[in-house]
Structures are given as C-alpha cells and as structure tokens.
C-alpha cells in the first residue's frame, strides 16, 4: 500500500529525514518509535503533505501513485488520514460542519452520494458513542476550548467517520490520561481491518499496550535503525534508545 524509498527531507537547510525506507501493506499496523527530534513527526507531516518541508531525494508510492505529487486534499480523497499531534482550533466553525464537509468531499471523490444532514447525524452519533463523546461536541467550534484529551478523541472520531485506508497517528497518546488513552485506543482498534493500514508515531511503549503493532521501527536521526516485532518495543522500554544507536554504529 505504502512504499517509502530512500526518503530525504529538510526544513530550510536543516536535514531531518536522511534516507527512510519503509513498506506498509494493507492490514498492517506499524509503530514508529524514537527519541525526540529523530524525525517521527516530520515523516508523518511529509506523508500528509504539510507545506514547509522540502523532499530532496527518494520516493513515496501510495496505492500505485506518487504520493509526493498530490495536494493534501487529494491525499485525503485517496484515503490518507493524519491524526494531528496538535489539532488546530478553528473558532466559530462548527465541529459537525467541518466533519460533514470533509466526509462529503471524500465521498464525492469516491463517487459516492453525499450524505444529507440526517444520514450524517446518524453516522456520527454511532461513532461518537464509540469514542464516548458527548453530542454537545458537534456544536462546538472545531477544537475550540477543547482539553488535550478531547482534541485527541476528536481526531480519532474524524478518522472513524472518514474511514481512511492509511491512517497516520502522530503522537496520538501524548497528553492523554490512562482512561482517555483506553478510549482512543479502542477507537483505533475498531478501525483495524484487512483493507486498512495504520502507522503510529509514538515516543512511548505505553500506547502499544493498547494498540498492538505488527511491526516496530526505531527512527533515530532521520533513519530507521532497526525494525522488529512487538517485542522490540518492550526492549526499547527497558533499555532506552542508546543501544540501538550503538548497534547501528558498529554495523
């Protein structure tokens, strides 16, 4: 589904990604772990098409298309979704309005009929129950005055409504207490399926207790130094990141 080859990217003159290689197939859940500043969030941003990043080498193929040539909204239409580390506030814009506009934009692109207000409400109510969100959320401004946990839940709600093929979760666990983490994780888990791939970027092993990955990758200084199964995450939790770096240097 997603094939990243020798991806180099920089912000201004600062090189951040220095040759990323990653294969993600449908149905898989990947966790990308690494210390602060290793390039985790940059990778997620580049995949979603955020401006300000310059790709200097390498390629990203998504479902047979050159992902890097697509506009952010085209990526969304093609099924890419980024759950933001810091969801943005848009004052005065109704949460439900944004979500309905987003869903119908995506449906239009898929050649599906747009949902009217009633169909949309029925769908979103369902998903809100899953996320244990109160319906009053719908009528508040997008992320306006939301707590950190509410913002993250709102991200996963959007994901549940938009049903992407490739979900990128950028530090979705940061700032969550344990109860909120459970809710968010169960939301993500409900979206696991044979047609969908999930790439989680995270600092801590904690999230992986709730969302079990098929693969774990260690990102450090812009490169994937080591890949493995779930056990790698546990090892990282115990030993930190330094040994991976040393191992890589020796190799």
């Amino acid at each position, binding site marked *: 589904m997603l094939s990243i080859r020798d991806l180099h990217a920089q912000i201004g003159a600062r090189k951040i990604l220095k040759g990323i290689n990653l294969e993600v197939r449908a149905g898989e859940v990947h966790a990308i772990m690494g210390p602060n500043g290793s390039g985790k969030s940059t990778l997620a941003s580049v995949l979603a098409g955020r*401006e300000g990043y310059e790709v200097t080498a390498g390629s990203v193929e998504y479902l047979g298309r050159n992902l890097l040539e697509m506009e952010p*909204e085209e990526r*969304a239409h093609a099924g890419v979704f980024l759950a933001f580390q810091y969801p*943005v506030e*848009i004052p005065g*814009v109704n949460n439900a309005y*944004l979500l309905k*506009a*987003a869903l119908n934009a995506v449906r239009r692109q898929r050649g599906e009929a747009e949902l009217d207000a009633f169909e949309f409400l029925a769908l979103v109510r369902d998903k809100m129950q899953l996320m244990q969100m109160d319906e009053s959320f719908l009528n508040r401004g997008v992320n306006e005055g939301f707590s950190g946990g509410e913002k993250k839940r709102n991200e996963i709600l*959007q994901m549940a409504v938009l049903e992407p093929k490739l979900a990128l979760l950028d530090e979705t666990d940061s700032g969550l207490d344990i109860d909120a983490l459970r809710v968010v994780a169960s939301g993500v888990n409900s979206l696991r399926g044979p047609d969908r791939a999930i790439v989680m970027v995270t600092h801590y092993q904690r999230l992986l207790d709730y969302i079990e990955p098929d693969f774990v990758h260690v990102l450090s200084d812009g490169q994937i130094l080591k890949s493995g199964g779930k056990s790698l995450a546990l090892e990282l939790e115990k030993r930190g990141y330094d040994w991976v770096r040393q191992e890589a240097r020796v190799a």
Partner: protein
Amino acid sequence: MSSQQQGLDALVAQKYRHGFVTDIESDTVPPGLDEDVIRLISRKKGEPQFMLDWRLQAYRHWLTLHEPDWAHVRIAPIDYQSISYYSAPKKKDGPKSLDEVDPKLLATYEKLGVPLHERARLAGVAVDAVFDSVSVATTFKDKLAKAGVIFCPFSDAVRDHPALVERYLGSVVPYTDNFFATLNSAVFTDGSFVYVPKGVRCPMELSTYFRINAANTGQFERTLIIADEGSHVSYLEGCTAPMRDENQLHAAVVELVALADASIKYSTVQNWYPGDEHGVGGIYNFVTKRGECRGANSRISWTQVETGSAITWKYPSCVLTGENSVGEFYSVALANHYQQADTGTKMIHIGRNTRSTIVSKGISAGRGQNTYRGLVKILPSAEGARNYTQCDSLLMGDKCGAHTFPYMEIRNPSAVVEHEATTSRIADDQLFYCRSRGISEEDAVNMIVNGFCRAVFKELPMEFAVEAQNLLSVSLEGAVG
C-alpha cells in the same frame, strides 16, 4: 407661469435635444448641478412646496461645504458637475438580453443563487421592471395596508403622506449634517418610506433592492423608517450594481426613528461593484445612516455585511435619547483587491440606562484596506449607560491592512464601557488541517472566514445569512494561493 419658469423649461428642453435626440424613452437629466436641476427633479416628481424648499436650503448649504478628508481612504477627485442627478429607465440603454451581459457577472449571480428572472433584472437587462432612481413596485403593499403599515417609494410618500414626511424628514440626519448627506438632501431621487403605526408588529420582513444601473448616474436614495410606539419592523436592504469601468458615486441617507417601546432591525447586504482586481472602476459608497431611539425602551439594531464597493464610507449610528433604549451594531466588512472600507458606528448615549453593543468583523485580503472607526459617546445625562465593543480583524496575505480607530467620550462617571479588539491571520495550520481532511483550500478559507463572522451572521434574517455567506466566498475568490 413666470418668465423665469419659461426660461427654465426652454433650457431643459434644449439640453434634452442635445442629449437624447433619438431616444424618446429616455428620461435622464443632463450632467450638472444647479438650482434649476433641483427644481426640475422636484417638479418631475410632483413634490409639494415644502419639499422643494428643503432641497434648495440643502443645496445652498452644500455650496458652503467642502468634501471631508478625514477618512482612511485614498480617493480620486469627484467632479460633481459631471454627474447626472436624475435617471429614469431607458429601455434602449443596456443589454437587451442575458446573452449580451458579461458572463463574469452572470457567473457571480449564479454562485449567489439569484433566480434567473432576478439575474436579468440585476444584470441591467432592459425588462419592464424599473431600476435606478425610481423605486421598484412594492408587491405586498395591500397586505401591509391591512396592518396599517405604510411601505412605499419615498416619492409616493411625499405625495401621499406629506405630513409624516415633513414631520420626520431630516429629524435624525438634518440637511446640514455632512457634505454627502447635504448633497443627498438637495438631489435625492427616491428610496423607501416605512411607517409602522402604534402597537403594530409588521407582518413581514420589508425589503428593497437598490441598484445603480445607468452609467454616470449618482444614486442618491433616501430612506425614512418610523416605528411608532410599541411597534416592530425588520427591514432588509440588498445592493448590487453592474460593472462599469468608471467610478460611480452612491451617497444615500437612511433615517430611522423609534418611538417609545418600538424596535427597528435594519439589515444590509451591500455588494456594489467593487472594481476589478486592478482597482479600476467600482462604487464610491458614501452613506449616512443614523437611527434615533427617541422613546423610552426603544431599540435599533443595525446589521451590515459590506462586501462590495471600491470605497465604503459609512457609520450606521444610534442616538439613544429615550431612557433604557438599546442600540446595536453588527458588521462584517470585507476589503479585497484594491477595495477600501472605512466603516463603523457611533453610539450616542443621551438617556438614562441606555445600552449599546458593537460587534465589528473586518476582513482584509489582496491589497484591501479595512478600517474600523467607532465613537462611543456618553453624555452627562446618560446615567448608568453601558457599552460593549468587540472589534476583530482578519488578515489574508501580506499586502492588505487593518486599522482600528475607536473613539470614546465618556462624560458620566457611572458609565461602563468595554472595548475588546483582536487581529489575526488565517493560519497555514488551519488551512492544512482542513485540507488534510479533504476540504479544498478555497472551501477551507470560506469555512474559516464564515466562522470568524458567525457572531454577526447569526443576527441576519435566515435568507440573508445564506446570501451573505455566499457573497463572502464569491468576494474572496482567489484571495489565497
């Protein structure tokens, strides 16, 4: 008939021959302004003597005035002698069918959802309906008459209800008020007149579309709304004008009078032609709008969405004379391309316990310059007066400007006056967030701008709120990216 009068008629006839030899249906006074032109306008409209006297007084006063220069706008000099001060429809002028109308203009109407027959009218196609200086027939007159509401073209009111006109005209905006209001007083051609009798709740929203159709005609309309004791009325004013390369002057006056326990809600969606993307053409919209809460417990509420005009220069104001009276001003002003908007309000607190609210949202894009200018004045008599002002600016791009000039004159120590102001930009983060959800950049901008304006839009009547949102998106096309 005096010999002077005969001389005038001869003069007029002569000008006519020169101006419109072949066009028998035309009825436009040749450009220029003097007392004879004013007498001619007054006579064409069959006005009583008091009206003519008032016009002439205004004209003589106008001659002593100079154009004001305090607004934060750049303006090309206006040649008042090159304007034609009266224009009735000319069937041979303008396009004959929609096929002849600029497709760009039609596309705009389509986006606004204007019905097809309306599009023809708005685009200036010579159909039977009447534009320019003569009011469009008022359809619901009968139903209103049953409720005792008078809603008619101003010229009809002068003929049919002279006592009301004489009593209230100029009582809020005197003919000496300011350069443009004085000019309007001398030469106004039409507008709307509304009288709602005691205790009557007007059974429908009243609305009039003002238009400037013919080239080189100034539009000087005059609107007077009187809400008698305990009555209520909501008035909608929508404005559009076809494209012209030259600038056109629009100097209107609106007067509102609310007697005891009465309320008036006045909503405007102004979409005069703003000029093209290089700043060529467009309307000069210099308007004096003022309401007086004359009686106790009365209320006047202005809501305006100003997206058009090359230059907008207006301050819908409230004079709060009656005890416990309330003044409100809700405004969205947009300046894109080379548009300039200098707008705001004045709240003059005279009576005890008077309250006012000001919510102003300014949007600047392209090279647009947007200025909020507001005055809150609390007189010594206004014991317990309150004002709340919120003034927000949104900037798009790096070549536009937002300016705020809030004036406060507080002369009673019991007054409570609050002012809040913010300036923000549409953040790249917000745009990216929407786009990453599949929403196009343009839709995202519209969404964010509409969110910014929500506090004002919710004050608009339903159908106007939709039009206002559509207008904003049309006016902002190409503002980003």
